[in-house]
């Protein structure tokens, strides 16, 4: 049992995070000061938020590549309605509804038509971003209320308020995944969907709601993003979906579903954030930075699966069991 804990992927990346943090504190000037740590935490907010629900989606053996586009669409809706003169307090729930609707579109296409989520969300990835541009074009809506823009960057001591939001929602998502029947059902349908179905797991309904949750979380992230950068634009968050999926995989969630933990993913989000921040502070060029991040990812996808690949090569009693 104890050996098992040590061998776990989560343990490995915690050690990696600690290692990188110690190295950065010693070797990189200004890394280990409160304002930098505060900024580092703030800078991971949107990725962390979306990674929470992405973890659940990937554990259920699905994927949502449309999150960043949902974020963009939600930003565009916010900008458009704000320009139209609606109060911001009314716009925010509308944005969440837009996110829910995006998630529902994904969820219905996956569950009702039985399409693979990879294909569906690559489609809606383009669709939602396209809609965002239809709404707002190339415009940037910037005159947002200072009360909210300063709230998005405010912090208590070195801890940004946005990070507290992440922590609160992470507790919820963690409890759902690891301490409820719903969480067990998600893991079950992710590891073997037929078995889960025949043992009474409401597969389609759970999947639909996971996509809705993913959409809502993306629009929540859009609110933080828009206020944090004080600019609502159709291209907000472009490319973030890759960072989110990266964090989830680096966090030890199997791309084939069925295994993964929420704490692991949160550590991975932090690890990617720390690496990025430290390398930028150390004046490492952006290309090297992307290379290092890529390397971490390849390693993270490879490492947990190396064992599985070896097992698959050597004939075993499990041979013949479908691996899909």
């Amino acid at each position, binding site marked *: 049992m104890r050996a098992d804990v040590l061998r776990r992927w989560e343990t490995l990346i915690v050690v990696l995070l600690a290692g990188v943090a110690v190295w950065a504190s010693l070797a990189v*000037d*200004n*890394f280990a*000061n409160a*304002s*930098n740590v505060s*900024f580092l935490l703030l*800078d991971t907010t949107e990725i962390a938020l979306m990674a929470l629900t992405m973890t659940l989606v990937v554990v259920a053996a699905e994927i949502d590549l449309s999150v960043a586009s949902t974020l963009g669409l939600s930003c565009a809706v916010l900008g458009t309605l*704000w*320009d139209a*003169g*609606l*109060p*911001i*307090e*009314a716009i925010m*729930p*509308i944005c*969440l*509804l837009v996110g*829910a609707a995006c998630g529902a579109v994904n969820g219905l296409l996956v569950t*009702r038509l039985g399409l693979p989520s990879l294909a569906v969300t690559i489609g809606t990835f383009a669709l939602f971003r396209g809609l965002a541009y239809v709404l707002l*074009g*190339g*415009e*940037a809506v*910037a*005159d*947002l*209320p*200072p*009360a*909210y*823009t300063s709230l998005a*960057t405010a912090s208590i001591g070195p801890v940004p308020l946005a990070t507290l939001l992440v922590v609160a929602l992470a507790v919820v998502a963690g409890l759902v995944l690891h301490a409820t029947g719903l969480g067990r059902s998600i893991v079950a349908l992710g590891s073997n969907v037929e078995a889960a179905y025949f043992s009474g797991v*409401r*597969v*389609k*309904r759970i999947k*639909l709601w996971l996509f*809705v949750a993913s959409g809502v979380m993306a629009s929540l992230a859009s609110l933080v993003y828009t206020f*944090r*950068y*004080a*600019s609502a*634009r159709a*291209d*907000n*968050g*472009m*490319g973030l979906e890759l960072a989110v999926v990266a964090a989830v995989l680096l966090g030890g969630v199997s791309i084939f579903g069925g295994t993964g933990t929420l704490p692991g993913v949160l550590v991975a989000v932090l690890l990617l954030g720390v690496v*990025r*921040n430290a390398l*930028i*502070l150390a*004046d490492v*060029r*952006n*290309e090297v930075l*992307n290379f290092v991040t890529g390397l971490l990812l390849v390693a993270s996808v490879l490492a947990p699966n190396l064992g599985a690949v070896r097992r698959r090569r050597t004939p075993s009693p499990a041979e013949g069991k479908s691996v899909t």
Partner: protein
Amino acid sequence: MTTRTPWRPVALLAGLVLLTGACGGTTKSDVQQQQSSAPAAGASSAGANPNAPIKQGLKIAFLPKQVNNPYFTIADKGGVDAAKEFGGEGKEVGPSDASASSQVSYINTLIQQKQDAIVISANDPNAVVPALKQARAAGIKVVSYDSDTAQEGRDVFVNQASAEDLGRTEVQLLAKQIGNKGKIAVLSATPNATNQNTWIEFMKDELKKPEYQDMELVKVAYGNDDDQKSFTETQGLLRSYPDLAGIISPTTVGIAAAARYLSDSPYKGKVKLTGLGTPNQLRKFVKDGTIEAFELWNPADLGYLASYAAAALASGQITGGEGETFKAGRLGDHTVGAKGEVLLGKPTVFDKSNIDDFDF
């Protein structure tokens, strides 16, 4: 297995929306009122000492829209060279994607590194402002160059040439080449690039003059400052308007991609191309007849001037107030204009006769 439509939560949320809407809240006009009633924080000349010496060892960071963009590589090298001249230390840092949010990450790290000045070309005039305000609060001087930020984000804006000069002269250049007649198109960078859009407004205004009555601007296309996208957009323009007489591309990436497409197409020499480009990039196309003439300011000079402006601010020679002057090495004296703008000068036109005199 059936999935029930989640009516209840939807109704609940909708109710909430109506409720908050009815109770009133913060709207765009509220914010505008607040802003107009707040006193404008204009820079004052108080505290500027034109005779103060440039401080030694100033740390100046150049934050372009995007690294590995040849234009910014040249401009930032000009800035770093200037820093060497006045005994400072210059460096270029920045994202490889041209997005506003990744620039913010860099601004924050520059604050941590306690730079003396940040020289930035903004991807989004507003999104970088909160971070730049923090930088200024930390005593860092901010100079925008090439593409301005909102005014409260910087001390001084070093402008390549007046937007008006650039917009109007590009139309004049093209009009001369097509005999003031025919359909024309613009191939721009991104739809929200501040500088491009201002130039395009001046182009449209110039086109209103009677001598251009036979010229018609049929489309503004966007290549997103991406080589491939600009190439396909050019292709698309000529497919949609086979009788196009000319293209203005006010971006170095766009004009090079358009020239490459034209030079290999039957439109070579027939469809005129002009805009903003660098001599090294376009020399071959000027020599093979694809391009007659194009223009640009000298980007190395732009970075050089921005570097001196940053040093002048950090040394207390100027504060960004109108009418203050500073010395910018080989470029001589420059004066801060209205809204903290410093002008580099009129654009240079490059053609067969002079292109070999320039190497950048």
